[in-house]
């Protein structure tokens, strides 16, 4: 830089000299002095420093984002005050995370520019106002403002769909519920729901309404997914459906315990108070986890509470409704947690789905019936006139019925006849949140055989002698299991795309370069399920067969885990590679061989068969010792690799695993 300056000034001087020779002498003298001075200072270069380059635009000019690259915070205030909703993206121009997030924010801005004011502020430049007034420990940071409410800091991943969904939540923090149906539907999800009742007839805006709205925004500060939804009811008749009578009351819907109304007399009616009250009292059957990427003890905190079922699912945060897969899992989670099921609690919301069943005697086996049930969720039952109709007159119903029959009873029976402990299978031919078919093959008592169609409420079977034996369970075998077992599971959901490395560590397989939604532990839908028991230092992996549905296999997985003597096989690192390697035919001319582990976790039981000639894994173990014993310093393993080796060669409690 310095050199360039010197050159240009010299060039200018020469130009001048050419025109006015009189200057020549002085110029030469001056030039020599200048060069000497520069030379002198440079040779004592200790004090040569260069200021940082002045900042330049960070976002491209086309992007609908105001780029305040000089950190003009006052401009932010001005622009923010005129916009309904605004997003402020604080960045540092040198930061790789800011650069990566820049693409994502740009993408979102293109979609939402009309509704949201997008601002980007260089909060690094030390002459800018932003840097002077803030100290950030990392970049980028996203703040949202809803009118004057804010900042609401975004704490989720910097991925366009997540950011967009968060902004949408801020734009509409409340869901308006005009009718009873809308309210019913709103409350039918497993996630916590809050309803506020505000009558707009007296004044244009009831005084408490803004407080309620800010409490919804407040909740977004705690939870970027907006799992807790806030609805608003303005109609008295609608409010009565959940027995809200008083104006300006806030209702927290709960499934297992009775629902609550915000105690205005005991607590101040402020947004913080409402928000913390909701988070204190909400029920969570299914919890989202998202490691923030920076140092955190989130997993430790959650997993040390007890055994955890981690479900890795594909997830689209922009989907208006939860995906069918998530709904099925939520359904399982709700049933798992429904402890008072046996007593048939009166509350409509807490009752398990109604079922209507039809038993079909099978011609081949006189002592067996196939029982096909249509399970209906309560809201649909009450709101519509769905009857227990398996009549084959409606062609579609008949088809479904026949296919279920085929699936369960005709295909499975040969196997089941050997083992009469066949549970129910749940089918998902076309998913609707309100109904689900299941088919059970049963050994039937004569008296039951007579009932051709009966209305029942979730199979009130006699309580099984051992509550956990899966053989005595039928449809909804995990209903209320939480209270029958001392190995209570917690349900967690993770976005598989964001947390694939963790899933992979826990045994998810599948080459994701082929297709992002294939493979993954034989689950064609890209999901992966595992139970981690941190205290016992074990984890189990759900291996799904192609024939079983998600619900079916997940329920069996949970039941087997809950059994007093766990029926599951502990997952050992490296084992699936071996079995997969044997089972699969190798690809012809594979460019990328499947990831191969070199060290396999062993127990005493697996060590011997492995060491007697079968395993590549053992070769590594033996290699390890051979290296140390015989070859000494020749092919010495890299210490870091050896550390990995050490990690896999874990003492497993059942005995020494490796020499």
């Amino acid at each position, binding site marked *: 830089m*310095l050199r360039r300056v010197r050159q240009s000034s010299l060039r200018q001087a020469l130009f001048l000299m050419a025109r006015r020779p009189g200057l020549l002498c002085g110029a030469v003298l001056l030039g020599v002095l200048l060069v000497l001075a520069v030379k002198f200072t*440079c040779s004592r*270069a200790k004090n*040569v*420093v*260069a*200021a940082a380059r002045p900042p330049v635009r960070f976002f491209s000019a086309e992007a609908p984002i105001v780029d305040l690259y000089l950190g003009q915070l006052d401009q932010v205030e001005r622009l923010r005050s005129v916009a309904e909703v605004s997003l402020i993206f604080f960045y*540092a*121009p040198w*930061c*790789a*995370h800011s650069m*990566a997030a820049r693409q994502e924010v740009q993408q979102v801005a293109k979609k939402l520019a009309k509704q949201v004011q997008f601002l980007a502020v260089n909060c690094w430049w*030390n002459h800018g106002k932003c840097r002077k007034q803030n100290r950030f*420990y990392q970049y980028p940071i996203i703040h949202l403002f809803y009118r004057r409410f804010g900042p609401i800091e975004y704490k989720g991943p910097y*991925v366009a769909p997540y950011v967009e969904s968060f902004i949408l939540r801020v734009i509409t923090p409340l869901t308006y519920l005009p009718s009873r149906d809308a309210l019913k539907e709103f409350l039918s999800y497993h996630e916590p729901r809050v309803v506020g009742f505000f009558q707009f007839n007296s004044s244009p805006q009831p005084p408490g309404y803004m407080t309620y709205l800010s409490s919804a925004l407040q909740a977004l500060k705690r939870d970027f997914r907006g799992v807790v939804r806030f609805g608003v009811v303005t109609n008295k008749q609608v409010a009565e459906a959940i027995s809200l009578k008083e104006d300006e009351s806030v209702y927290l819907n709960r499934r297992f315990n009775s629902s609550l109304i915000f105690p205005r007399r005991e607590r101040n009616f402020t947004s913080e108070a409402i928000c913390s009250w909701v988070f204190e009292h909400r029920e969570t059957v299914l919890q989202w986890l998202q490691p*923030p*990427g920076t*140092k*955190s*003890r989130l*997993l430790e905190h959650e997993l040390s509470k007890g055994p955890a079922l981690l479900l890795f699912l594909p997830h689209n945060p922009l989907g208006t409704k939860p995906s069918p897969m998530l709904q099925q899992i939520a359904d399982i989670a709700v049933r798992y947690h429904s402890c008072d099921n046996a007593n048939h609690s009166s509350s409509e919301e807490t009752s398990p789905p109604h079922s209507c069943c039809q038993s079909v005697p099978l011609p081949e086996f006189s002592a067996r019936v196939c029982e096909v049930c249509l399970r209906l969720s309560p809201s649909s039952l009450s709101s519509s006139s769905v009857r227990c109709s398996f009549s084959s007159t409606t062609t579609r119903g008949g088809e479904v019925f026949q296919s279920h029959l085929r699936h369960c009873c005709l295909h499975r029976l040969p196997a089941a006849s050997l083992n009469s402990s066949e549970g129910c299978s749940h089918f998902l031919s076309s998913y609707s949140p309100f109904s689900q078919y299941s088919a059970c093959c049963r050994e039937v008592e004569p008296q039951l055989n007579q009932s051709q169609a009966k209305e029942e409420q979730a199979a009130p079977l006699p309580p099984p002698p051992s509550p956990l034996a899966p053989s005595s369970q039928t449809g909804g075998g995990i209903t209320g299991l939480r209270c029958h077992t001392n190995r209570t599971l917690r349900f967690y959901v993770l976005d598989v795309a*964001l947390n*694939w*490395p*963790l899933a*992979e*560590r*826990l045994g998810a397989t599948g*080459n*994701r*370069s082929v297709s992002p939604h294939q493979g993954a532990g034989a689950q064609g839908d890209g999901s992966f399920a595992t139970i981690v028991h*941190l205290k016992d230092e*074990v984890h189990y992996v759900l291996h799904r067969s192609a024939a079983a549905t998600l619900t079916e296999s997940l329920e069996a997985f949970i039941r087997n885990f809950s059994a007093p003597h766990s029926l599951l096989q502990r997952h050992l690192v490296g084992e699936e590679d071996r079995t997969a390697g044997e089972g699969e035919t190798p690809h012809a001319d594979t460019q*990328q061989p499947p990831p*191969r582990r*070199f060290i396999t976790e062993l127990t005493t039981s697996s060590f011997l068969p492995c060491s007697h000639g079968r395993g590549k894994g053992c070769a*590594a173990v033996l290699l390890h*010792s051979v290296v*140390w*014993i015989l070859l*000494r*310093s*020749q*092919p*010495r*393993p*890299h*210490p*870091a*690799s*050896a*550390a990995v*080796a*050490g*990690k896999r060669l*874990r*003492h497993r409690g059942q*005995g020494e695993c*490796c020499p």
Partner: protein
Amino acid sequence: MRAPVCVTVLVWLLSDARQFTEEEMSAVRQRIKSMFYHAYNSYLDNAFPYDELRPLTCDGQDTWGSFSLTLIDALDTLLVLGNQTEFQRVASLLQDTVDFDIDVNASVFETNIRVVGGLLSAHLLSGRAGMQLEPGWPCSGPLLRMADDAARKLLPAFQTPTGMPYGTVNLLKGVSPTETPVTCTAGVGTFILEFATLSRLTGDPTFENAARQALRALWKTRSDIGLVGNHIDILSKKWVAQDAGIGAGVDSYFEYLVKGAILLQDEELLNMFLEYDRAIQNYTRFDDWYLWVQMHKGTVSMPVFQSLEAFWPGLQSLLGNLDSAVRTFQNYYSVWRQFGGLPEFYSIPQGYTVDKREGYPLRPELIESAMYLFRATGDHTYLQLGLDALESIEKITRTPCGYASVKDLRDHQLDNRMESFFLAETIKYLYLLFDPAHFLHGGAAEGDGSWEEGGEDRQCVLGAGGFIFNTEAHPLDPAALYCCSRHAQDRQELRDILLSLPKEKKKTRSKPAAKHTEDPPHGPSVSIALKPGEKKTPPLLSCPVQPFSARLSILGQVFTDNT
């Protein structure tokens, strides 16, 4: 080991930015290469034969001596980046131009790690670089003789009553009579890798003995609670600066104890380190930061994190102490994200830089740790740090001629210096981080290039078992040490054993074990089954068991230490 797990783990294509595909990594490698050549060519054009390039004024200066330091230091990086021809050219150029018979006062420590280390690794890599080899290589060769020559100039500094060396020596005249006897701890204990390598390759034990003597003398001076300060009077053995920590002035001492133990299979060195480590964990660690404490009392004297301390997680990973390493690394990474570099001093309570220590001279330590931890865990968090570092260095420090040290991380003001370790270490570790299949990681694809032969009658297997990096990132091959020191002897013994095997079975079995006294106590017939109540203590030089939670500590998740 063989082709590491991470090689194949990387081929996934993921939508999330946290996972790097092979293509992305290859693109990053290209960027690192062009970064190197920008700095390297600028040095050759503007600064050679001075020690260092001055990137703001585009000229050179001598800093640590007068031996084209940057060129010596960068020599093996050329080969790491795959440039054999330039490596050959520079290696011969150095043989012709560099002369250590000069009247220059040089730092014993810096000359050792940069010059001796650089020449040794260049010598050990010259086979891969396709250079003309002498018949006895790697036990002889011109670069080895140069390294020997340079190291010999340092030996006068070790001629002290305690065996601990002076800090500075005149390459021509030896130690000046007025030389201060105060040396930093690292300046006493950072010789074993280079000196033992020299001794084992050349057969002259002087160097290794000098280094070991200094280490043992230093070991005896530790305080009652097992800590060492950071400056010592080598004549009186009094600690002049009594701050104990893992950073400036001490860092590479601990590093060399561990790496020396691995390179030489030396339990004495490892025992020293393990004892220090106990004291360090006990007195200086707070919330996975390492503070500075008074070496006798253990009271906190400076609650700062120093840029040089960032090597520690990498060192821990070498001993298999991964969970602690990961937690500490995450702390240091958060400092990087705050400033786009690591300030020389970072005040932990204030969460900000310390006055007069705001610079970042393009140091490699955090990247070095990232490389080791990525090798050990396969977690792409470490690649993300590599990308952070690459972007920061490009955006902040690039000048028309080279890359300038950051004088002040608060405003990214630049200094007119590019230290030689930028080319020797920072770029090398960055490149190796993004190239998990590199031969320096201990064998790429099996078959071609994973090893080479050498030694007398080409009987040794070289480069097959991974490399040990000295503190200036110069790789040393343990197999070469073995090849030149024990290989022939062991082969003879093995032959004797095999020939006499049928006659006296009993004797032969005990014979090798008796000879190799430093061997871990393994016999070929050790039973793996444990008798009830028996507790097996693992051999010292082996990897510890990882906790169950290690499989969950990814994506920044950490777990509390249960020990």
